[in-house]
């Protein structure tokens, strides 16, 4: 017997019993108050504690559970690797405001610590440690010290230049141990300046991707600089930025402009020295209101080096991948100079979901003078962006270029 049937039977029985009781009652003594009192008396005979359905019990547990993904600062890490690393997992340890019983975002000289270790099914591995000192001397200054040990056994390379062929895809292994010290100062609410010094210890070796040849089978040190061996590098950066987006995580208006100048100094090998200027420009143009927008992005990575210098392939600018040309593989096109541009029309399909159509274009060249309008490679696409009221959560882009469709799932907005 279903619950509905049982309810109907009980309904009929009770209606009849109430009607019968009412008839039997002396009409002279009858009153509305008495009828209601009788109904309450009847209910009093059948009271029972509230119960919960299975679904409600499960969701009640969920609402009241202790966080089961963290314990005393330890937590699960699910990635943080570059695209193509495969499914990854690891463990992290995060502690905010060390030495203070209270976590206050504005605490002077607050020290945050973050440690993590992770590995992917394709053998990518990362160990990292980061210490940040926030609000140094109560000023808007952040000091950071970062150590990273990365093992990336299946990085892709297609050769240098805009005309590199997809059929020349090879893989290589990159192991690198980097230590970076950085400072960032926000003299004004929207302006930031920063600098960093890094010690980089890269090692380039045989790739392990069984689907493609290893790099040395197709390329030599003249076509893949660095293949013969890499020195350690000292990298020095200077950065200036202006950010007036309404929300950095999920902007609906404003812009973000950043230029970074870097010098890579090969230790004991002047032939690998070079300079780099990276420019990121992002402008969001509301179309009537914040629910329809045109987002324009332009990026350039320009390398200054002697024509005979051996700018290592691992530090060569590229286009292709989630933040440049989405219809092409990550680092699909590499050379000393790279530019890319994106125009994206976004609209709010739902309060937590934006949809977008986009076009990306970009090219790489050996020298800036080689850039030409006809050389741009273009792709088109459609995307969905999941977000909360204030934060970007995830995106799915489907891009189509001359090398086919490419789906991209990401957890970071833009570049």
């Amino acid at each position, binding site marked *: 017997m279903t619950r509905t049937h*049982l*309810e109907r039977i*009980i*309904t009929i029985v*009770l*209606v009849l019993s*109430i*009607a019968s009781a*009412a*008839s039997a009652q002396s*009409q*002279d003594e009858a*009153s*509305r*108050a008495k*009828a*209601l*009192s009788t*109904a*309450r008396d*009847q*209910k009093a005979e*059948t*009271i*029972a*504690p*509230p*119960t*919960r359905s299975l*679904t*409600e019990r499960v*969701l*009640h547990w*969920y*609402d009241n559970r*202790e*966080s089961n993904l*963290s*314990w*005393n*600062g330890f937590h699960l890490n699910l990635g943080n690797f570059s695209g193509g690393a495969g499914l990854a997992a690891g463990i992290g340890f995060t502690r905010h405001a060390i030495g203070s*019983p*209270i*976590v*206050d975002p*504005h605490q002077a000289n607050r020290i945050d610590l973050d440690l993590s270790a992770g590995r992917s099914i394709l053998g990518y591995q990362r160990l990292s440690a980061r210490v940040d000192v926030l609000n140094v001397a109560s000023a808007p200054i952040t000091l950071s010290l970062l150590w990273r040990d990365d093992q990336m056994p299946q990085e892709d390379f297609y050769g240098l230049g805009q005309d590199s062929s997809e059929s020349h895809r090879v893989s290589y292994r990159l192991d690198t141990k980097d230590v970076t010290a950085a400072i960032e100062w926000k003299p004004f609410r929207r302006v930031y300046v920063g600098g960093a010094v890094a010690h980089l210890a890269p090692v380039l070796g045989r790739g392990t991707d069984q689907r493609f040849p290893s790099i040395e089978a197709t390329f030599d040190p003249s076509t893949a600089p660095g293949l013969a061996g890499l020195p350690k590098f000292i990298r020095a950066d200077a950065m200036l930025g202006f950010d007036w987006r309404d929300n950095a995580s999920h902007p609906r208006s404003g812009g973000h402009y950043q230029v970074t100048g870097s010098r890579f100094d090969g230790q004991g090998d002047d032939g690998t020295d070079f300079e780099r200027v990276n420019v990121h420009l992002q402008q969001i143009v509301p*179309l009537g*209101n914040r*629910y*329809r927008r045109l987002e324009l992005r332009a990026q350039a990575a320009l390398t200054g080096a002697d024509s005979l210098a051996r700018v290592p392939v691992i530090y060569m600018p590229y286009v292709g991948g989630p933040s440049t040309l989405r219809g092409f593989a990550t680092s699909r096109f590499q050379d000393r100079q790279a530019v890319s541009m994106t125009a994206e*029309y976004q*609209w*709010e*399909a*739902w*309060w937590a*979901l934006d*949809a977008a*159509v986009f076009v990306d274009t970009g090219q790489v060249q050996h020298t800036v003078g080689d850039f030409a309008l006809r050389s741009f490679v273009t792709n088109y696409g459609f995307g969905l962006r999941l977000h909360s009221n*204030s934060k970007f959560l995830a995106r799915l882009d489907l891009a189509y270029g001359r090398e086919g469709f490419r789906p991209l799932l990401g957890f970071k907005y833009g570049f």
Partner: protein
Amino acid sequence: MAFKSFALTIVVATALGAATLDAQQAPTAKAQESRRFYADDPMWSDNDMRDIAPVAKDDLSKSYDFVHNTFAKRATLRAPSVNVNTLGEVPDSSWFTNRIGVRDMTIDEVLQGPDTIEGPAPGPWEVIGHPTAGITPKFAIRDANGNVFLIKLDPASIPELASSVELIATKIFHAVGYIVPEDFIAALDPQQLRVSKDVRIKTETGRERAMTIADVHTWLKHQPRQADGTIRVLASRWVPGKVVGSFRFTGTRPDDPNDIYPHDQRRELRGLRVFAAWLNHDDARSLNSIDSYVEEDGRRYIRHYLQDFGSTLGSGSTSAQQPRGGYEYLIEKDKIGKGLVTFGLWQRDWMKAKYSELPSLGNIESRVFDPAGWRTEYPHPAFDAMDAEDGFWAARIAARFSDGMIRAIVAAGKLSSPEAAERLSRIIIERRDKVVRHWIAGVNPLDQFEVRSGNHGPILLFDNAAVRNGVKAPGESYQTSWSTFDNMTGVETSVTDVEEYSEPVAWVPVSAFGPADSSGARYVVATIRTINPAFPQWLKPVRVTLRDRDGVIDIVGIDRGGAPSVSSTTNN
């Protein structure tokens, strides 16, 4: 067992309600087995405050409430409210007390609201807890007089927003008749705080430790200071009694014998939709209610509170209200689909809303506001079940808040900007006008029935609530016919032809009173239609029953014949 109890509760309540209303709705003469009217009708107080045994706490899962109401397949209830008296009014009970709807209230009385004290006493405030429910930053204190308050902080970047709307909404909901906590806007001096020794707090890593005054000072560190260095807070007095959970907007509480009416058939809970729309209380869900087991005059019973009005008007509690708030459920799949495929060419109305630049108002406006389409964060069973009669009941009450009263209530919210206060008052007034205009004309709006002595005998006077409230200009006519009514048999017999008047008045045919019932009372029924081509729904008659007891004639029944559901908010 629990299910049987639940079913019994539904049945008892439905049967009682049906007995009341079905009899009222009889369009032609028909026999009934029991009387339609009792000697104590119309009943203005429902004694649901009888002594009951202690009950266990019934915590509602907020996730379940959302999931169940958003995704569970359920048919919208198409049945009239059952907890009304024979006039269609809501009797006083542990849920509701008639106030501005039935009597004139002074502005001072409205401003006094539920308050029995002046607010937290000066002197030391002892922090005794740090509730984690809800999203508003808050902590509990005990003042020097031993009174306990929940101290709620405004968003640091939008001072005054949440505290002002919570106070304003509390005053209005109380004047309407709901039971609400005592709320005060108070000035907190961090130096007056102490922390009770036994208060524990969880750190970021999940460890528990004793709370210190430094913790409290950290919460307060970035709150804006007033000129005297104090922090403006909302102090919400702990409700009396023992909190035993929240009430749900369907069914009844199975362990409470007093609770016999299904909550989605309670007129005051259905009609709450009108007031919630007016004040943009989009968070009017079960989680923001309290069932408290109280003791009063030696009786212990459950009293039902509405609480937590931080997400009303332009406030979203911790930020300005989301522009979607009040216009669209969190999940409406048809709109998501339409939004996706139209490439942004289709814009929701709320996307075109313009809000004040004054930060203390948040996102509230009156131009795009649509009373019929207004929505809570997710589907609300009692609001979905609301029909035009429930709406009419609520709209009449909303109409009784004068402009001056609204301005005084807003002033009690203590917005520091006079411009903001005036703007907010205007918006609330305009929104009131919209809800009244929409819901007062949904049924035949005849109201304020009264029997007086005329030159040739008694006359029945009434008015048109839509005209009274300026929704339309006078000009309609009224068709009236009379029937005798035998309260012992339920037999009703037409005795006059239809007469048409241009004025809201009718002669009472004294000879038409039916036979006396066992209490000696005699009855006659007037069936009145309102003729106005612009409002075809007004052709549905209002049936008014007059009772003669020892030569004194009073109004004992008003039946609007059941009303179609007005819900446009179901999400199934």
